[in-house]
């Protein structure tokens, strides 16, 4: 049997747009997993009393903390929109190549809009 070529070098694979949306869905999901205990910790501190609330508020006045928050907004938006797309694919909606590509573009556009809006609210 002839040896089949195996291209697992990620930099040599040309992923279609839907592939990128899927990879990013996974990365954003892992990021949100890490964010969950952090979020609960932040909630705990912010509700622990005046001091804790002020500590959290001061923390989120730092540009770096806001940038991290923006990253989480991206992760949540991308994961949510790409997840809705996967649910649609589950019921065989938009499975053909053209519509799968269009819905991938829609996911990226919708995520971009949410991130832009959040960036405006956080930094403007």
């Amino acid at each position, binding site marked *: 049997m002839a040896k089949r070529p195996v291209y697992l070098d990620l930099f040599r694979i040309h992923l279609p747009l839907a592939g990128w949306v899927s990879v990013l869905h*996974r990365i954003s999901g892992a990021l949100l997993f890490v964010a*969950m*205990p952090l979020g*609960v*910790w932040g909630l705990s501190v912010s509700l622990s009393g005046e001091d804790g*609330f*002020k500590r959290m508020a001061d923390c989120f006045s730092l540009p770096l903390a806001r940038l991290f928050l923006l990253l989480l907004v991206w992760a949540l938006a991308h994961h*949510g929109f790409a997840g809705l797309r996967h649910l649609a694919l*589950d019921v065989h909606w938009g499975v053909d190549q053209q519509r799968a590509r269009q819905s991938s573009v829609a996911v990226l556009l919708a995520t971009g809009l949410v991130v832009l809006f959040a960036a405006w609210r956080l930094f403007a």
Partner: protein
Amino acid sequence: MRSATGSHSGTGAWLVQRATALLLAFALPGLAIHFLTAMPLDFDGWRALFAPLWLRLLMLLAGVALALHAWVGMRDIFMDYIHPTGLRLALYLVVVVTLAGSVAWLAAILFGAALWRGA
């Protein structure tokens, strides 16, 4: 008996992932609107946001759904990339402890006495 790395838990996990995804798709935007439309706030205003029972129940429900959802997702990632069985099971344990701990902590925050101390 099912082995620790058995292959018959896929359909249940798939269904849990989808069901929790749907729940979160409705709950998270609702919660986001509840919190973001109230900003900016001082401490008393922030604490008052958590006063309604329905809000605390919805947050706990979303937290449980998120934990189940994240469990299936992280399990999928580890099944794909972490092939040594012992290491994979150890990572499962880390994920389960992290998620269960987060939910328990969230419940303690939302329904514990600290939130209402001096209220």
